[in-house]
């Protein structure tokens, strides 16, 4: 049966629905030159690695926000998350034109001083070769029900 267009089966973003081991994703995208240029401009970076036709690699954290897409694909909600900590391991640069797959997993949840924290690990790979490009872990505190900002 076809679903109504406005039907939203995503879980509410709240502590009760964030569980350790929960898998998020995958999401797929192509590394676009427009994004590389826009990101370099926004961060006032003129390194030719990002603009030279012979290089065309993506700035290291250009797709760091993939965590937001992973969360938004699984959860709905208002406002109320704050990014507290971030960790990255870079294996290979993302290159313009490359198709990338990103998968995530909730690795830890805990409460401290009345606040709910969670850690989300996510990694990006070349969608065709599965070569590992980057692995991130972000820690956020959920102030009240709602999605990360």
């Amino acid at each position, binding site marked *: 049966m076809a679903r109504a267009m406005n039907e939203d089966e995503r879980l509410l973003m709240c502590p009760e629905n964030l569980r350790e081991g929960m898998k998020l994703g995958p999401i797929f995208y192509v590394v*676009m030159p*427009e*994004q590389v240029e*826009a*990101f370099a*401009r*926004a*961060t*006032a*970076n003129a*390194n*030719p*690695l990002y603009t*030279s036709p012979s*290089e065309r*690699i993506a*700035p*290291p*954290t*250009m*797709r*760091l*926000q993939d965590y*937001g*897409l992973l969360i*938004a694909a699984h959860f709905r909600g208002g*406002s*109320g998350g*704050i*990014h*507290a*900590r*971030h*960790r*990255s*391991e*870079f*294996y*290979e*640069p993302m290159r313009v034109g490359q198709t990338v797959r990103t998968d995530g997993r909730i690795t830890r949840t805990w409460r401290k001083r009345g606040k709910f924290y969670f850690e989300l690990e996510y990694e990006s790979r070349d969608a065709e070769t599965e070569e590992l490009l980057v692995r991130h872990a972000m820690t956020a505190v959920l*102030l009240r029900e709602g999605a990360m*900002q």
Partner: protein
Amino acid sequence: MNVSAPHPEVGRELVGEPYALNEAEAHAYAAAIERPAERHPRPSIHNDPQAARKAGFRAPIAAGEQSYALVANFLVDRFGVCFLHGGKLEAIFLKPVFYGQRLTVHARVLARGRSATELEVWVENEDCDRVLTGKASVPAAEHESELA
């Protein structure tokens, strides 16, 4: 810098160029992180005074990851593309960054090993308050590891 640069000696402090994080830069950053845009923008602590106040901030704040991006970019600029072949970065967001603040990336060499150089990294605002602190590891360039 495209090639791997020699790593500085232990104790040396490296400082980046100041970066003014105004609303325009924040909007440009927000527009750049998702291409094509996949989510509808909604009121948040980054763009809505009321949402910011509810979360305990006097005004909207910049995304912490924009400061984090400055550090990562700085490491590539300073050490070359080798940072993207085995480099590591970890940071805690200590203080909010309000629009109009000027940020400067700092790094201090803690150790130089055969395989990597370890650094303390931080970002200061114009009052010399740390808004981000952390550590980084940069793989030794091939010619350096051969000489070590």
